[in-house]
Structures are given as C-alpha cells and as structure tokens.
C-alpha cells in the first residue's frame, strides 16, 4: 500500500466495512518488524482470520520452517493453542524454543485430512483458544471458506500449514482459497558469524497473497526464544530502497 491519501483511505475503510458485514473487527497481531507490518492491510496478521503457510523447495514436503513460523506467531498470542496434524514428526522442544510453551499446546493427532479440517473448524468455532494450527495438503475453496467464517466468528487466529507428500504437488499452492494471507517460508543461509559455526537461521518470507494488500518478500531472521522475527542487521541499517519488493501476480 504505497499510495495513501485521505480519499483512498476512506474508500478502503468503507470497503472493509461492507466486506466484514456486521462482524466485529478483531484487530491484528503485529510481527514487530515494521518492514513486514507496513505491507499488511491491518498492520499485522489479522486475528479472527485464516492464514496459510507453506515451505519453499524441500520445505513443501517437510514444512519445518512453516511449522516454526506458525509456532512463532502462536507464541506471541496468549492462551491455549490446538495443533491438528496427521503425521507425528513435529518435535515439541523446537516449538518451545520458539517461545510456545508446551503447556499451551494441545495436539490432535488424527488419521486423515478430512478429520483435520473437521477438528480445525470445530476448534475455531469454540472460541476459547487463542489460535489453531492445522497441517493439511489440500485445502479447497469450500473448506477454507468454512475455516475463515469460523475464525471470524470466534476471533481465533487460524494458520493452515500446507504440506504435501511430494514436491511436485506443491503447485496446488496456486489454487485460490478464502484465506486472508498466504505465506511461503524457505530457509536461507544463516547469519554469518566471525567464527566457524551456524548463526541465527534466516528465512526468505514471501507474502504471496494478501487480501486487500500487495505481495512482498522479506529476508528475515528466524524466530527467537519469544517467537519474534527480526530484520538482519546489515539490511536494517542500509538505506531504504523502494523497489525491494517485486510485484507478483496475486494468488
């Protein structure tokens, strides 16, 4: 949203009001990185909405970075979180290191994706949870619409981690869904250290789609022990270049 005039802002507010009907606006969870928050329509990850995260490259299959990205977001909320999954390879100590305390996470390990979606929706409708994470491969328009409506009703933050069996199936991520934003997180070489060793992990975080917003991509340092992302030091200190974010076709 590079263009901002009072007239346009008024029109945008009007459109948002029409779109949301009589539902209350739930606010947003800022990332705390102004470069990212500025690009998002609500100045952060909208609460009471569905967001999709997937890994890039091999991450489309194992979804390691996507899971940690979701854990970092949930860590910055307060209250219990439900994590629905079909494969049991998620390692809880890593979530704890991203700031998501094990007492806060309830896992629902189910047999198939249909049940994941059913549990996902049920948990979103309940309203007592801060957020719900679901690991699914396919997410149809209908399913995502149901999740989005359920999230709008209760105000819980919904994150769908898209994770496929084969890298070729990741093309499915181009299909339209009703989610508010869509992210792709891939691993980048870690921050350089003056000594041999692996520094803080870095991610290429791509905002592939944002409803009522532009696409963007960011190079960020991965979640710290409180789930916060950060802008790498050498990028944060350099002069602003308006053309960093390439425009992409939405969806």
């Amino acid at each position, binding site marked *: 949203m590079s263009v901002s005039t009072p007239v346009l802002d008024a029109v945008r507010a009007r459109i948002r009001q029409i779109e949301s009907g009589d539902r209350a606006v739930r606010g947003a969870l800022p990332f705390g990185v102004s470069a990212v928050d500025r690009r998002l329509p609500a100045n952060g990850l909208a609460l009471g909405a569905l967001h999709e995260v997937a890994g890039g490259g091999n991450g489309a299959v194992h979804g*390691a970075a996507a899971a940690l990205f979701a854990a970092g977001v949930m860590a910055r909320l307060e209250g219990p979180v439900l994590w629905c999954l079909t494969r049991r390879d998620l390692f809880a*100590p890593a979530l704890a290191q991203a700031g998501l305390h094990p007492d806060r996470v309830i*896992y*629902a390990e189910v047999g198939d994706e249909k049940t994941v979606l059913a549990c996902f929706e049920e948990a979103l409708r309940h309203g007592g*949870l801060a957020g719900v994470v679901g690991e699914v491969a396919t997410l149809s328009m209908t399913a995502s619409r149901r999740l989005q409506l359920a999230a709008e009703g209760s105000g819980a933050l919904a994150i769908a981690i898209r994770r496929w069996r084969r890298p070729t199936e990741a093309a499915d991520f181009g299909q339209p869904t009703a989610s508010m934003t869509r992210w792709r997180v891939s691993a*980048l070489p870690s921050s350089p250290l003056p000594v041999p060793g*692996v520094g803080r992990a870095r991610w290429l975080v791509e905002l592939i789609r944002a409803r009522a917003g532009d696409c963007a991509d960011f190079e960020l340092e991965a979640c710290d022990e409180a789930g916060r992302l950060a802008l790498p030091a050498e990028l944060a200190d350099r002069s602003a270049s308006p053309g960093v974010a390439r425009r992409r076709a939405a969806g």
Partner: protein
Amino acid sequence: MVTAANAGALALGLRAGMAATQAQALVAGLVARDAEPAADAAALDQLALWALRRYAPVVAVDQPNGLMIDVTGAAHLRGGEAALLAELVARLAEAGVEARAAVAPTYGAAHALARLCASPTLVAADPLAAMLTPLPVAALRLDADTTDGLRRLGFETIGELAAAPRGGLALRFGADPGRRLDQMFGRAEEPFEPVTAPELIAVERRFAEPIGAPETLARYTGKLVTELCEALEARSLGARRLDLLFHRVDNRIEAIRAGTAKPVRDARRLTRLLCDRLETVAPGFGIERMRLAAPIAEPLDYRPAPSGLGDAPIADISELIDTLANRVGDRGLYRLAPVSSAVPERGVRKVAPLAPPTGTSWPPDWPRPSRLCEPPEPVEAIALLPDRPPVAFTWRGQRRRVKRADGPERIFGEWWKREAELAAVRDYFLVEDEAGERFWLFRAGDGEDPATGGHGWFLHGIFA
C-alpha cells in the same frame, strides 16, 4: 468331574470333562474341591459390569465362561479393535484372569474364534467364511448330544455341515444346527440380554410406535439427557461417560458411547456430544426403546467463578476437548511434556489435554529441529574422524555439501534402561548446506572406539 482346565492343568494331562478319579490317578496329591457354579456366575457378572464401565455400552454374559461385548461405536475410543482387544486381555492378565478374545461381525463367529483360534487375540479378517469353515462343529454352541450325533454322522467341520441339505438335519436334530449356522454367518439375528446393574444411573423411554427419523432421535436424546441430568443432580454427580442404547424392533441394539474429561451435568453439552454421533446409528425398521445410562459418574468439581479482581478469566476448553476426543479418540488428543532424558526422542511424553500445567519446558541451550525423523534415516557422509562435522552427505539420493556446521553435541545412551546402551554414544552436528537448509545429523559412536557405535551417519531432524 473336572469342570475346567487351565494351561498348567493341560500340561499335566488333565482335560475338562474328565472323571475326578481319573484326574487323581494322573496327578498324585491332586486336591479336589466342589465346583461353585453360582459363585462363578456372580464373578462373571462382576466382570461384565467392569467391561461395561470400561469398554463398550453393550455387554452380555455368555454362560458359563465368556463375555459378549458389542464394540460397535466404542472401539474408536480405544484406538481401534485390535488395540482394544490387546488392552482387554492385558488388563485381565494383570488381574490373574487368562483370557482369549476375538472380534468378528457376529456373536457366533466371535464366540467360536475366541475359543478356538485366538492366541490370545484375533480380529476376524475378510472373508469371514474362510476362517469359519475349517472349525469343528463343536464351535457351534450346540448341546453335547447334538454335537455328538453330528460327529457320528461324519460331520467334522462347520464347512461340511453348512454344505449339507438342511431338511434332513432339521428332522433329526431339530432347528438348532441350522439356526446356529445362520447366526454365525450373520443370516439370522441373535437377541441377548445386556447386563445392567441397579446402581447405574439410567433413564429409559419406550415408544408406542417405533421411531426412526434422525430429528426424532435427536429430540428424544435431548429429553433423555434432561431426565438423566435431573437424576444426576439428585445424587449431586456429573457424568464422565454416557451410553445411549437404541433397542430396535428387530431385537438388535445400537449404541453410542461418549466420554467427558471432567464430570459434566450440562444437558445442552451432553446432548451435543451424543447427537454428534447419532449418524452412526442405523434405526432399521424403527426403535422402540431408548435407554441412556451414565456408567461412570463422579462428583462435580466446582470452582469459584472469576471475580474480575485481577485474576484473568481462564477460558474453559473442556467442552471442545470432549467433542474432539469423542471424534478422534482419547489417544489422538494430548499435550506434550518434557521428560529429562539424554536421548532426544525420549524427551517427550504425552499427558492428558486437561492435565494441570507442568510448568516445565525443555532446556533451551541446544537447538532442536522442528521436524524429527523417527527412526533416524541413514545417510552417506564424508567426515574426518574423530570429531569433525561431515564435509558432504547424501540424503534421499541428493548430495549436499556442508557449508557450515556446529557440533559435536555428545549424547550417551541410557544404560539404566537397556543393556545395549551401556557404551552407546551419538555425536550430533547441526549442519547447513549451500542452499541454507539446516539438518540435524548424528554419528553413532564417538569416532574412536568401535564399541560405542558403528560410525554410521544418520539424519535425525530438519531445522527451520
């Protein structure tokens, strides 16, 4: 006469039905006691009630030495039929009861398979007929005279009997053999009387006209739950488990079982739990009787309402947990808590989703991968011994050059758990390849002493 024989007795050559004098001649010093059929039957009744509380809503006593448990609609709460059987037999073994159990589509088949094929558990496979035809005719639950007579005529197996024309058999032995065959293969219904206990809290409703429409069932479920809640209130209890039985006009019983994590007496919530599973009930030609029981009821745990004076309101998610648990089973729903263990994959244990918070977390000093490969996948790696990280490794056919690495983090086996881990060592490395993907590799062994491990490399996890 010897009435029953266990494994020890069988080894000594004793058989059920043997004369007492013969048994005493076989085993010197055998002590003979009178059989107590009444006490046995009472004990079996007790066992049936235990099974009713624990496993399934419909349990009947199969005299003289069996239980019939209808696991329809209840097996998923225990992780499936095979898991249910294994747990049932293990529990009974703990209590000193030697048991064999089988699951089959009909009672007749399960009865025969449990007694003749189960070792000690068995889940009938498809097709049922292939499993049943080689069984002897004695498995048909006929009286001794009929079994004897059939054998004298040359019928050895059920398959032979099933192939014979019915008319002659019926003339000679009555309708029993044909009826039992039909019941075994599911062609005829088998009515039975489920066990019940006077202390169970239960409400019942009979219908003058059989009902069958889903809305009607849901409406009457709601009415029964309201009545049950009143009964519970009179005893100041809350239900932990609910059994809703539908007696059909054709004498079959359909059942729904629902459980809650905490005692509940909220009619709306209990109705919802039951109606959630109403679609699994086949009303057939109609339902003439509905019975709702609370086999497990406990005192409600009251908690002071939040006062709004500083203490943050805690959202009650037990309702959601109950709904999900009844859908995916108790095993699928858990929280993970830390266990202090040197071996990473053992550092996690499941606790109940509503267990009190442990307040502990994993030590934050070493990075841990967000995806763990279980079991670790072997990789080919090139590394300098004894303690250098690999230079390159091949995983799933893709070769990766290591740009940066951290380690080793040495982990010793837990010798107090297994003898094999006495000397075992793993050296963990966090490595990053050229594209920036980070992996958790370990080498079995310390790189010097072959006794500590085979020096093979494994990939154990993927970092974000």
